[in-house]
């Protein structure tokens, strides 16, 4: 199988020039203007934490939470890596916003027919064999595009080459079962606003544990309820029969008496 496409974001190389956001906005026809947070009009944004710039965007999880919670399957994980949203399916329940462990999906609250907005991993460019617009625009190589396995190897190489510079962790390898966006950092990730409790937590498993019990609840429950109904109903019927027999007996004795 072809390995998945991924991005490696090395926060130590980022100079905060915002070229990635500009390129992203141009690529996706979003209103121009610098935004410091992910919004419905910014698929990627640069956050600054004590002088360190961190690019935020959809993590394109290997097992995406949004795709698992969406009741109408409006999200799909494509084999190449992108997690894509289909607005023609969406009913607007906003469970994806509620459930996403990275707070990525944003809503068009002021729109009367709103869509979810988030990074599309430049799926159309990927299909043409091109890298994402942001990776192409990055002047310092802070964002690099490639195969996920290759990028993980590359990240390990960078950590091994400069152990003093990097902390020994690649964010996105284990988190929620793995993501397509990988991060390197010189400071602990929680200082950069990352959730660090998500290691190895494949989110869809939490609900699947409950959902997978449905067939047994239905079959055992159905048989159980039918059984109770059968027993109690039978009891009533027997009682009724007995009473009518009694009445018949009484009638007969009365008849005989006469």
């Amino acid at each position: 199988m072809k390995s998945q496409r991924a991005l490696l974001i090395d926060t130590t190389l980022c100079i905060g020039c915002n070229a990635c956001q500009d390129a992203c906005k141009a690529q996706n026809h979003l209103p121009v203007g610098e935004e410091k947070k992910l919004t419905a009009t910014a698929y990627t944004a640069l956050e600054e934490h004590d002088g360190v710039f961190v690019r935020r965007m959809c993590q394109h999880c290997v097992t995406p939470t949004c795709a698992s919670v969406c009741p109408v399957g409006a999200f799909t994980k494509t084999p190449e890596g992108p997690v894509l949203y289909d607005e023609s399916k969406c009913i607007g329940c906003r469970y994806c916003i509620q459930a996403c462990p990275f707070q990525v999906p944003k809503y068009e609250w002021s729109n009367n027919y709103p869509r979810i907005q988030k990074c599309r991993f430049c799926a159309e460019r990927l299909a043409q064999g091109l890298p994402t617009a942001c990776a192409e625009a990055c002047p310092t190589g802070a964002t690099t595009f490639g195969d996920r396995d290759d990028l993980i190897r590359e990240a390990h190489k960078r950590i091994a080459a400069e152990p003093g510079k990097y902390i020994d962790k690649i964010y996105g390898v284990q988190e929620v079962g793995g993501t397509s966006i990988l991060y390197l950092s010189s400071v602990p990730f929680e200082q950069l606003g990352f959730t660090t409790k998500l290691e190895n937590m494949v989110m869809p498993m939490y609900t699947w544990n409950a959902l997978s019990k449905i067939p047994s609840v239905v079959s055992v429950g159905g048989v159980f309820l039918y059984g109770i109904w059968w027993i109690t109903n039978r009891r009533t019927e027997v009682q009724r029969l007995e009473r009518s027999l009694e009445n018949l007996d009484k009638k007969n004795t009365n008849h005989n008496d006469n």
Partner: protein
Amino acid sequence: MKRKLQSLTFWKIVAGIIIASGLYATYIRFTQGLGASTHLSDQFPWGLWIGFDILCGVGLAAGGFTLAAIVHIFNIKRFEPILRPTILTAFLGYVLVIVALLFDLGRPLQIWHAIIMWNPHSVMFEVAWCVMLYTTVLALEFSPVVLEKFNLTRPLKIIKRMTAPLIILGVLLSTLHQSSLGSLYLIVPEKLYALWYTPYLPVFFYVSAISVGCAMVIMESFLSSKAFKKGLEMNLLTEIGRIIVVMLAVLLTMKLMDLSNREAFPLLLLPRWETYMYWLEIGVGIIAPLVLLSIPKVRQNSTGLFAGALLVIIGFVVNRLNISITGMEAWAKVSYFPSWMEIAITLMIVTTGFVVFSLAARYLPVFKHGADPKAARPHGFEEELLYLSQSRHVEVV
């Protein structure tokens, strides 16, 4: 007489104001969108409409499947006199939940997508299907009342024959989605505050739905007896009170065991907003009614029983709002309070429920025992007579 008239006009004015403001809010909601009408945001995407209208609405309608199971599956026919109004309450409850959902969904016109676009991995998908199917089941369970009214004997016979499988289906569907409303929150282990997040959320949702469903049966009987000047089936309601005691005891035990398993007891003493709200929910909604209703004298007294049921309902609502709002605020780093339009629309939906119920009770044989010869009980003919002799003419309000 004059006083009665005054109070009548008062409630009509209140209902009028609620409906008028609700309709205005509806106009804003559907012309300018969710952003203009609600205090929802990307940080807080689910608010009052999900927390109250959906989570509480479905739970408060749980009396329908509980009492239907008691009467038809456990075959305890003496509860039949209060079954019809309960089924009506449940049916209206579910219809209003769907109406509320149309307000909350960003793209309400595509609500039907869940029928053809399947995602069996989604809890929301399962809830959607169960609610659709169960609303249909409730409509069928209530249909005899309408069919009787119009003397349609043939469909009535068909429905009566379908009763057992229908009721079993209803109980199964209710079991699935009442618990699944809790499962919705299993996906946010890092977001929902630890006092509420537990793998047992679906179980807690289910058990609390049964106890609040019973409390709603009591509440609904009391309100009907006041509104329609009919007698109270106190002996039946007292027994329902006993079921509540058992369910609350089960719920409390499970909650304590769960806190202990998760070593979450220290959280009960942290001086935080969540702690106070948790104590409110447990104290008012579980411990107080558990103590009150365990006392036979309280249970057999109409005021005591009513108070106990009311506490259970309040505690239930606090619990659902805690999970959907209180427990999510700390993580979201925003405090959410609904906009006046969210509140107005919620009140309008609740008011509509009351109005439709009273109309149905006025024009349909809701408070009439279904005339099924098979349902005649082996014992208690006297009670039957007593029941029939009670003054139960419906006064037109």
